């Protein structure tokens, strides 16, 4: 009753447009790939995704030849067998015959692929199987092929794969997480790391079946690796990483489709490029690990150091009862110059730590207080270096200059307690309170 209502409601929406089918297929494939991709990259086996997505080809061709149809179950079986064989051979070559692990992977998957290519050539006649499609995909033709359950066959296949991956992740979440993070502990707890490895490889093989159906191996490789890597830059928890990777995969599908229609070019190629661009954006602006964010942090840190330097210098000038006032430009030059130094002086002025007087800059009351703390840190540290570490007098200014910005009140208190004196620093100057 209820289902019928839903179907009726859906029917009133009408047949989805060609574009909708394509985007839906793209999203499904990308999400399915992203789910297993997260574990691939955390286990540092991304290239196994590349390898398996090619190595399943002979399995598929044999399944086609034996059954004479595109039906799903034999194809999955063929893919799983080919995938397991590849995994096993790769491991055997590496473990027992001491071929380096990357080389053994390269040997096995290229040989499997070559066998697949030859098989296709031999039997391609009745199979409608184009090697070109294997690379580039034929998402464009998805809406015009056979239908299963009212949707394009390729979409249906990908949905099944997505569901399978989702269920396995849900059921074996803690086992997959533990064996990726600490295989030794997993094994000692009775979750064999080897069996989890094979399970993951089976999932990757099944997932890559979708590539030979519609989207092309290149999109599958990209979607296994790129969204997961992007998500890894954005999140510090595995759960969020998986969610983000699915969202990024979805975004790549939508953006890629939009761009491909705009420029009238290959859809799966464009989806791949979109994923790459999203990764590049994350590299630049990820809040914690992005290049721009860490550059920003560096600039902030330099500004802090520059501000401290300016305050410290003005304080020392006052201490020496110098008559001369430094101008903005002179001050800036004295702490190293450049636009950062000028900006630091501007910041100090705005925050009311220094003010301009007739012939230059001067500390305000607030500024003097801040500077005092700073100079105290500096001189306490110098005293500590001389008294406790026995460093020579002429070697302590530089290290103290570097460290002074990081000595908070807590460490100041500890330092003061350790040093019995301490009214004067080793150079004989007053240590301010």
């Amino acid at each position, binding site marked *: 009753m209820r289902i019928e209502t839903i179907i009726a409601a859906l029917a009133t929406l009408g047949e989805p447009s060609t574009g909708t089918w394509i985007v839906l297929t793209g999203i499904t494939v990308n999400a399915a790939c992203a789910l297993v991709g997260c574990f691939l990259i955390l286990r540092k086996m991304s290239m196994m995704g590349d390898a398996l997505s090619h190595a399943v080809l002979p399995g598929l061709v044999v399944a086609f030849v034996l059954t004479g149809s595109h039906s799903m179950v034999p194809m999955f079986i063929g893919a799983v067998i080919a995938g397991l064989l590849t995994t096993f051979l790769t491991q055997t070559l590496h473990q027992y015959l001491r071929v380096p692990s990357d080389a053994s992977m390269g040997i096995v998957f290229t040989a499997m692929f070559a066998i697949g290519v030859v098989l296709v050539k031999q039997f391609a006649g009745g199979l409608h199987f184009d090697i070109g499609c294997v690379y580039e995909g034929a998402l464009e033709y998805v809406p015009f092929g056979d239908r299963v359950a009212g949707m394009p066959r390729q979409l249906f296949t990908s949905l099944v794969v997505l569901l399978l991956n989702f269920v396995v992740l849900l059921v074996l979440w*803690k*086992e997959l*997480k*533990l064996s990726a993070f*600490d295989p*030794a502990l997993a094994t*000692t*707890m009775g979750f064999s790391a080897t069996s989890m490895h094979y399970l993951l490889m089976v999932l990757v093989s099944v997932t890559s079946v979708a590539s030979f159906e519609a989207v092309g191996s290149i999109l599958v490789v990209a979607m296994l690796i790129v969204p997961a890597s992007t998500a890894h830059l954005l999140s510090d*928890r595995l759960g969020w990483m998986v969610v983000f990777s699915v969202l990024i995969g979805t975004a790549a599908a939508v953006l890629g489709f939009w761009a491909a229609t705009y420029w009238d070019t290959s859809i799966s190629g464009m989806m791949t490029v979109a994923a790459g661009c999203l990764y590049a954006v994350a590299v630049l602006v990820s809040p914690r690990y992005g290049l721009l964010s860490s550059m920003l942090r560096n600039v902030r840190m330099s500004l802090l150091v520059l501000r401290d330097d300016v305050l410290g210098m003005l304080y020392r000038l006052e201490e020496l009862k110098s008559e001369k006032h430094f101008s903005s430009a002179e001050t800036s030059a004295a702490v190293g110059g450049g636009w950062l130094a000028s900006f630091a002086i501007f910041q100090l002025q705005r925050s009311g730590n220094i003010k301009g007087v007739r012939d230059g800059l001067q500390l305000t009351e607030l500024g003097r207080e801040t500077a005092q703390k700073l100079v105290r840190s500096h001189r306490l540290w110098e005293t500590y270096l001389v008294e406790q570490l026995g460093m020579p007098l002429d070697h302590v200014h530089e290290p103290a200059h570097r460290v002074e910005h990081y000595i908070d009140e807590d460490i100041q208190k500890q330092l003061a307690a350790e040093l019995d004196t301490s009214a004067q620093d080793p150079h004989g100057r007053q240590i301010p309170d």
Partner: protein
Amino acid sequence: MSQIAFEVHDMTVAYHRRPVLWDIDLEIPEGKLVGIVGPNGAGKTTLIKAALGLVPLASGKVEIYGKNYEEQRHLIGYVPQRESVDWDFPVTVRDVVLMGTYGRLGWFRRPGKAEVEIAERSLQHVGMGAFARRQIRQLSGGQQQRVFLARALAQAAQIYFLDEPFAGVDAATESAIVELLEELRTSGKTVLVVHHDLQTVSDYFDYVILLNMRLIACGPVKDTFTTENLQKTYGGRLTILDEAAEAIRRSKPLQ
């Protein structure tokens, strides 16, 4: 006489057929704090890994409370070397500690409220309660080590294996770890620790295993940790033993 918690019988371990531990035969009574001491390459880590079933035994057997390792899994806690961890892994401190409860849960079951509580308590115990939501890269070396200790606590084991827990930690963490180990011993657990610093062996441990490819001695610190035994342990490798091991490796090409 207390129960034997950990027993190794006639154990030989080989990597690629080259024996790295010859005929180890030892017994550790329950409730001891045991230091595993020996020079580099003496097989200290291998002893632990063999005890945990992470490397195959060439011969002999390991028993935990008189039974096979497989049956006694739930009694074992393990703290790996810090270098073996991927610190970029997207897990928080609490996630890591929670992993300690996975073994008890078995396949498929998810950690629930009770497990989270255990994890929180273990974290509090090592003084890391305030850091539960941090990603593990954002901790200092000492803090990272404490997190892994908390995970071992969450395993609620009877017998703990720690691989160099003092490597690269600050003084405060070192004394915190020692305190924790003593607490464990007081509550009747057995703790085996791979240790490098000979100076502190007598302070930290009450039992010691001296190892250099073969067992030199195993027993209470005051009888066993003697100059004579130390000389045997550190007084150079047995060259012929090495040569024989090499001969075995060469002549058995397939493992």
